[in-house]
């Protein structure tokens, strides 16, 4: 009796029937269609045209086939931007946020309660402040003449944003995003059995051996999930624009490059093509991580 009843219950747990269920979901689906699916398809279409923001081509765009894509792929400016984005993602997310976040989580694991809460609060603050506020704070911090940083480091007159734009946005993004990795790793570390750590210690394992043999195998899934999320977020991050502006090609990471191409130079078609390429890169990165995660799961059950 229960066996025959349960599949039907699983199909329709609310007991609404197909029509009413569709009716309830429809408004949300419409919103998704209007604001996600349509723009995505529109971008796909735009990428094959010479559509411009202003001028003749804005009124009468015509198809250029795959010209936009071949042009972009051959364009040294695009290559340069892609390389900067790679630097930005690896430097600020994979190395910066993930390592620093783990280090803080690991060191705070046995810290006194008040110290832990204080540091967590400070790190979190960097994460939850609106990006416009944060960008303003950093502009003030790094200002050439009146900046706090120059005053502290006795480097008056150094225009950090102008002289070292990549370093600035990498440090900025580490500062801004470490909280997420820290929180995720703190939670993950509570799941590492203390007796396994103690056992490793009893056998004379040093800190690095404890991490390698006990901690990392236990939190591998968390590490991969974290890296996946922060790589994608950083890859698509537009906040640096608020610090450096878009014109400086030395710090033009892809989102900024697209913005510059599509909205500033007005080449909507070209911008759409780059955006699509970016989406493909995102997908590839996500697939690699998901593959690694699945391998891990297979290993566990084997």
């Amino acid at each position, binding site marked *: 009796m229960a066996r025959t009843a349960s599949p039907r219950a699983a199909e329709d747990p609310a007991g609404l029937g197909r029509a009413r269920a569709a009716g309830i979901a429809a408004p949300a689906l419409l919103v998704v269609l209007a604001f996600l699916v349509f723009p995505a398809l529109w971008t796909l279409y735009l990428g094959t045209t010479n559509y411009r923001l202003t001028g003749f081509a804005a009124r009468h765009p015509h198809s250029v086939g795959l010209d936009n894509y071949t042009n972009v792929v051959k364009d040294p400016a695009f290559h340069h931007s892609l390389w900067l984005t790679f630097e930005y993602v690896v430097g600020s997310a994979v190395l910066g946020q993930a390592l620093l976040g783990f280090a803080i989580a690991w060191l705070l694991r046995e810290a006194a309660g008040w110290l832990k809460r204080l540091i967590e609060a400070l790190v979190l603050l960097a994460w939850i402040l609106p990006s416009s506020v944060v960008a303003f704070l950093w502009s003030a911090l790094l200002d050439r003449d009146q900046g706090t940083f120059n005053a502290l480091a006795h480097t008056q007159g150094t225009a950090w944003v102008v002289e070292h734009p990549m370093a600035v946005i990498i440090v900025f993004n580490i500062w801004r995003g470490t909280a997420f990795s820290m929180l995720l790793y703190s939670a993950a570390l509570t799941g590492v*059995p203390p*007796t*396994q750590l*103690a*056992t*490793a*210690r*009893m*056998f*004379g*394992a040093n800190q690095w*051996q404890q991490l390698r*043999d*006990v901690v990392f*195998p236990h939190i591998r899934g968390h590490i991969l999930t974290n890296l996946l999320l922060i790589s994608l977020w950083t890859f698509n991050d537009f906040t640096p624009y608020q610090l450096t502006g878009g014109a400086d090609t030395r710090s033009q990471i892809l989102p900024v490059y697209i913005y510059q191409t599509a909205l500033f130079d007005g080449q909507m078609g070209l911008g759409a093509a780059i955006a699509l390429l970016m989406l493909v890169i995102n997908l590839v990165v996500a697939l690699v991580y998901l593959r690694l995660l699945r391998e891990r799961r297979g290993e566990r059950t084997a």
Partner: protein
Amino acid sequence: MARIRTVDLTKTFTDASGGVTALDALNLTVQDGEFFALLGPSGCGKTTLLRTLAGLETPTSGAVHIGDADVTHTAPGKRGVAMVFQDYALFPHMTVTENIAYPLRVRGVSKAEQRQAVLAAASELGLTGTDTTVGLLDRRPGALSGGQQQRVALARATAANPTVFLFDEPLSNLDARLRLEARTFLKRLQRELATTTVFVTHDQAEALALADRIAVMQSGRIRQLGTPREVFRRPANTFVASFIGSTPMNLLEGTVRDGRVLVADSEIALPDGTAGAVADGAPVVLGARPEYFRVSSDPLPGAFGGTVAVAENLGSSLLLTLDVAGTAVQAVVGEEEEPEPGARLWALPRQDRTLLYADGELVG
């Protein structure tokens, strides 16, 4: 091989509600090669003591000596101590072989030597050879039974070649039947290795069965230290008396008068060797184990006379709870007896096995 000695070992934990003394100026010596039990209810400090010996806790004051060395401030990995935790703490992502080889790998021992040590430890622990364990060494801990996991944990500990073993509740993660088997195995292993071993348990039967000597602990202090026989026969105080024994000892409040104990409206003979030790009229506690009663349906002089309130079948025997003038007295009778609830019986405690406690401490 090594002797363990603690000198005025004290450990206090401080938290929001103030300090908790887990170990109170503890002086204890465990002899070389001894199988030593730390027994007590939860929160008595036994686990803290074990962890302090291991170096996982730093004492507030006092010292720990292992062998000739003062190891109070020595790192856990440098004490020559191997500890097996209650959950075995096997590394789930390593095979059995890798687990057992781990202590050697950490020390940077060569692969060939590791393999040799693994095989030696595995055969010592019965992890190789028999039909059921073929291929065991290549499995991961998750694919092993509880008993096998315990043996792997023990094999890993022996592979470290320590001078001292520490076991935290070694049997409590096993089911009841396996526990007895593992108990025998553990005792034989310890005899063969002859390595000084300290283990923690809350199960008095486990301590009695395994240990050469037992320290019964309460509130960070040792309430009695002795062989299982001593601790069972002559508990030094009412705490130990109530803690040791599968069926708890009857501890009956009464007074001494004319060489007898007045308890539960009965006049019971003073235990052997206590005559004159307590003044007349003094309040005492009479201790009598349920196993040491002669029970009869005819009146016996100097016995507890009461009615059967509850009869519990223990298999080869029967545990009776008698209502003696409003006081519960428990006595064990043979399986051939089948008293009905409500039946009137007389229970005579063996004079050479009864104990007298004044102010909670054993008299005589």
